[in-house]
């Protein structure tokens, strides 16, 4: 049973602004019945301000609550103001959502974006334009990138909870991991100046490598039944062996080796090279 906040329950049991505005100035349609939820947002504007907002939703309790909350949040605001609303704002307005249900808040934000694009005469919201990463749920790289950035996500599971991407056949998991690495990597550069490359003692290096594998790498692999173990370190070469599902899958090995390497380079030292040894 989900642990919904009182505010979520209130908006589910007593949804505000249900319906469709006839001759709306902006319409945002997102989702579809196959994916399990859909939202149609209609807005009426007067003098550049949203004077009325209505919604119709096919979806679970939190999808209905998120849509209801969104209509309350946008009323009385200009398009420039509502453009800044993030999915986290919608979740905060509801005193939070269970992580597995965060995609309901993302759906709200997407409907709003679609409505804004529609109002401005664009055919598509910017997020719909990117390349499709998750074919099961039709999620683009743009959506995934933004959600990772705005919610500081770091695992594939989180991305799935927020966007549904990767929740079907799972074949896009390496792509999602790549996007996570790209976004997080870019952030790391922005927030912290690159550490001066100083000579690290071997013991310190071993400790850091071990720590990074334990904290940053293994949890992600174990989600898919895989695992990695540190075998040895020789100079700048780190020897690892793959376990579980990783060990049996030749294509994932390549991706995982790159992931392990990029993590170690990020957290330990630039020049590290990862080699696989048989376990």
């Amino acid at each position: 049973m989900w642990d919904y906040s009182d505010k979520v329950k209130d908006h589910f049991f007593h949804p505000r602004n249900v319906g469709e505005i006839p001759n709306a100035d902006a319409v945002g349609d997102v989702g579809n019945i196959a994916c399990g939820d859909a939202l149609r947002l209609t807005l009426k504007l007067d003098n550049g301000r949203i004077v009325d907002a209505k919604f119709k939703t096919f979806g679970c309790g939190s999808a209905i609550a998120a849509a209801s909350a969104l209509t309350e949040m946008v009323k009385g605001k200009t398009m420039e103001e509502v453009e800044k609303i993030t999915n986290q704002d919608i979740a905060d307005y509801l005193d939070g959502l269970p992580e597995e249900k965060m995609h309901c808040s993302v759906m709200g934000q997407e409907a709003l974006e679609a409505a804004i694009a529609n109002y401005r005469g664009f055919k598509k919201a910017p997020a719909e334009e990117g390349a499709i990463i998750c074919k099961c749920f039709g999620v683009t790289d743009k959506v995934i990138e933004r959600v990772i950035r705005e919610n500081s996500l770091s695992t594939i599971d989180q991305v799935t909870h927020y966007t549904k991407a990767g929740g079907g056949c799972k074949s896009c998991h390496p792509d999602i991991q790549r996007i996570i690495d790209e976004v997080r990597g870019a952030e790391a550069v922005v927030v912290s100046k690159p550490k001066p490359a100083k000579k690290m003692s071997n013991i310190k290096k071993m400790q850091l490598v071990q720590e990074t594998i334990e904290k940053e790498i293994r949890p992600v692999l174990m989600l898919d039944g895989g695992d990695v173990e540190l075998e040895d370190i020789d100079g700048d070469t780190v020897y690892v062996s793959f376990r579980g599902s990783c060990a049996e899958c030749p294509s994932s090995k390549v991706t995982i080796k790159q992931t392990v390497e990029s993590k170690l380079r990020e957290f330990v030292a630039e020049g590290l090279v990862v080699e696989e040894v048989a376990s």
Partner: protein
Amino acid sequence: MKRVVYVDNNATTRVADEVVEEMVPYFKELYGNPSSMHTFGGQLYKRMERARGKVADIIGATPPEIIFTSCGTESDNAAIRGVLESYPKKRHIVTTRVEHPAVFNLCKYLARKGYELTEISVDNQGLLDLDELRAAIRDDTAIVSIMHANNETGVIFPVEEAGQIIKEKGAVFHCDAVQAVGKLPLDMSRSTIDLLSLSGHKLHAPKGVGALYIRRGVKFQPLIVGGHHEHSKRAGTENVPYIMGLGKACELANEYMKEEQGRVKCLRDKLEENILANISNSRLNGHKTLRLPNTTNISFEYIEGEAILLLLDEVGICASSGSACTSGALEPSHVLRAMGVPFTAAHGSVRFSLSRYNTEEEIDYIAKNIPPIIKRLKDISPYVKEIEELEQKAVSTANRG
């Protein structure tokens, strides 16, 4: 306390008062270990054997063919892994696409560990394709695992017909009968089933106890290794109070089997007919007659199951759904998908499963509460208006034609 109308008996059942009474002494004065040499403990062995006899009775087996386990999932694991280990050269498993996760996910796990897996499909009414089964079994098939009755839809498989095919082909037949025991008459003395799983809490015994039937002569290796309990087929000191409870529950289930087929079925039919007649865009999932007497699975198209459950919960009605949103998974029930139930319907499925404790007044209460709940969600749904317009158009076109 808020009113509770419990119609989720395929998830778990109320522990019968008689079962609780039966168990109490074994928590208190009769706390001995049945393996002990002294009378105080050793006397429990005989009592436990009487319980074993009652469990054997309900499925027409003999007591030595029954081992007690901790739950249905353990029984399924013990059966499938125990047989695979006995036939190390046979690396092929056959099962169906609609098994309970206890079998479904175990088989998928074994497939990742190097076994080959074939999953038999079902038709849109949830019935098994026996020709596909016949074609699937090979010389190196170690075990075929087919459930007796489906937990989500209640659809009953023709296990004896399937068993004939499995025997002709020389494979071992495991049957997950967790939902069937107590609701359908079973007779292992005339059956093709080699191993059969049952679970206590689905038949008014508590959670935490199950049993596995292993036909005499079937090769089996224990899942849990240790002492000589359960004829060395399942180590671990016996859970005496729960085993006594399971025995009592099986005895009661035998007595109430007719009621299950009669009164409970009538209540189920009344509820089902009422809903299907009064709610547009509602449809039954699963075969109309080849079904457990207590289960009905109904889809309400264009609305979502979790939302229905939350509103039912508000009025105290406990049911469950095959919707994706109830489990944290993103895709709806694998059973409904295997049956080809369209997504428009799978997301809005609700299962009502009754027991002998349900009353006609409760059924009327559910029937009265459903229409306003469905209307409320349809009013929010962006699809209903469009669909109704489309249907209207189709009707008027047909009339013109």
